[in-house]
């Protein structure tokens, strides 16, 4: 979980009454109107009028510190990355106007895939038009009718949608519960195909999965393992390969899914794998085939950014410092946090309820700080969260400024 911070990741069946097909959304419309009628600025309709840097923008006329962008490594304004994009725009035009399997594979797409293979040290890489499509495509294609998918209940919407599209038997287990996962694997009928789907970092609370134990159990029961490393790429692990690298299970994982829209700083998704038959995916994976490929400028910026991230150990170190000082600072101020210790670049601040959460979000934005407001049913256990994602380009002083805005706003709202 989750980018869709006002709806659950797991798909719901909404029931409509009468002839208007929109009547099924009436409850959601009422909820939204209720929130906005209190004079609240709409947390889900913010416009960035100008973007000054990876950490600053003008929002609603105010200069705002960005603390909810997933722009972990701050690559969006990197001069080399921007230059690579400009060059590709000039050399190859604005778009490919075609599918990867027809006229949509340019030199840049192959070079971007080579950069991913080099980054992960894997044999195969496949670039999708979005991260959502990477999960949707790979999961729905490899796990079909009669196969079993065992997955964490807090999985991202793209994982759930991939499960639904492939029509495999879907068996969820309690978040990060190793024993619950093993029990389910043990009961799957003999001979059935098995896929275990995990995430390195879960984006709601910013906690990491116990991948060492989980991957070992999955292998013991003969399951293939797919790990979504969207929120860890470039940051976690010695070479930024993610929680799989950090926990020493790179060689036991069959597929790593990732995105260009977080640490890489553009848009797109990918899957890397050492499976000897992996290349067939290009012909059978519908979300790869039936859509236009990424524009040349996007794959050029992605490639340049990925190659720079390989040498990003100083930035990684600084981002860890930021994460630790924000976590400690917020804890010292008396805020309740999603994890006892900082485990990633996401720090989730737990609000007492939705009303105070919305008030706190508004106080923060008015005092010049943007974070994500996440609320039920998108959040685990009905929590309302202010989710903060740090950037390697946040300076030490900026983290101090962020803490004083939290202190001022928290007192205004009466939470601390």
């Amino acid at each position, binding site marked *: 979980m989750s980018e869709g911070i006002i709806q659950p990741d797991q798909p719901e069946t909404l029931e409509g009454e009468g002839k208007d097909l929109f009547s099924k959304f009436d409850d959601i419309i009422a909820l939204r109107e209720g929130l906005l009628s209190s004079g609240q600025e709409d947390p889900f309709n913010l416009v960035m009028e100008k973007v000054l840097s990876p950490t600053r923008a003008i929002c609603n006329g105010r200069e705002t510190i960005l603390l909810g962008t997933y722009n972990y490594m701050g690559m969006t304004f990197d001069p080399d990355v921007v230059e690579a994009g400009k060059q590709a725009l000039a050399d190859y035009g604005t778009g490919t106007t075609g599918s990867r399997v027809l006229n949509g594979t340019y030199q840049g797409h192959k070079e971007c895939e080579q950069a991913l293979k080099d980054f992960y040290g894997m044999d195969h890489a496949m670039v999708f038009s979005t991260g959502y499509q990477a999960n949707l495509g790979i999961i729905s294609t490899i796990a079909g009718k009669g196969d079993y998918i065992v997955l964490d*209940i807090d999985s991202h919407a793209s994982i759930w949608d991939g499960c639904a599209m492939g029509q495999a*038997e*879907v*068996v969820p287990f*309690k978040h990060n519960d190793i024993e*619950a996962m093993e029990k*389910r694997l043990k*009961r799957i009928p003999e001979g059935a195909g098995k896929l275990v789907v995990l995430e390195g970092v879960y984006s709601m609370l910013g906690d990491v999965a116990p991948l060492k134990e989980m991957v070992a159990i999955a292998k013991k029961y003969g399951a293939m393992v797919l790990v979504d490393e969207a929120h860890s790429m470039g940051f976690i692990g010695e070479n930024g390969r993610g929680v799989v690298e950090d926990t020493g299970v790179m060689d036991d994982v069959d597929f790593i899914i990732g995105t260009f829209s977080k640490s890489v700083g553009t848009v797109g998704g990918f899957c890397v794998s050492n499976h000897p038959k992996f290349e067939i995916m290009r012909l059978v994976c519908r979300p790869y085939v039936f859509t236009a490929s990424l524009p040349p400028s996007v794959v050029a910026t992605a490639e340049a950014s990925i190659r720079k991230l390989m040498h990003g150990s100083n930035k990684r170190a600084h981002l860890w410092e930021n994460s630790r000082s924000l976590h400690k600072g917020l804890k010292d101020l008396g805020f309740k946090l999603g994890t006892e210790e900082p485990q990633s670049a996401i720090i989730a601040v737990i609000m007492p309820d939705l009303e105070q959460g919305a008030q706190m979000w508004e106080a923060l934005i008015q005092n010049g700080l943007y974070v994500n407001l996440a609320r039920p049913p998108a959040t*685990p256990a009905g929590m309302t969260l202010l989710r903060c994602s740090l950037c390697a380009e946040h300076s030490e002083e900026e983290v101090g400024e962020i803490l004083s805005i939290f202190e001022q706003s928290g007192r205004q709202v009466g939470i601390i």
Partner: protein
Amino acid sequence: MDRAAVDTKIRSLIEPFNKKGVTIEEDTTFQNDLEFDSLTVMDFVAEIEDEFDIIISMNQQAEIETYGQLVDAVTKLQAD
């Protein structure tokens, strides 16, 4: 285990989840009558799965709306 025995067992398992003390009949629904949310469903299903050593996949859960349907499904699954 026959249907009656499965019914007795599930009745005891459902108790801690039946916070409002709804009287449970064959046609009692989980969503509307018992007001189970997705997390409650997960915990409740896990209890049943552990008790009977079965898997009730989400695909199967989607077909189960009432208490009676659940007892039928579990009776069948644990006999297989």
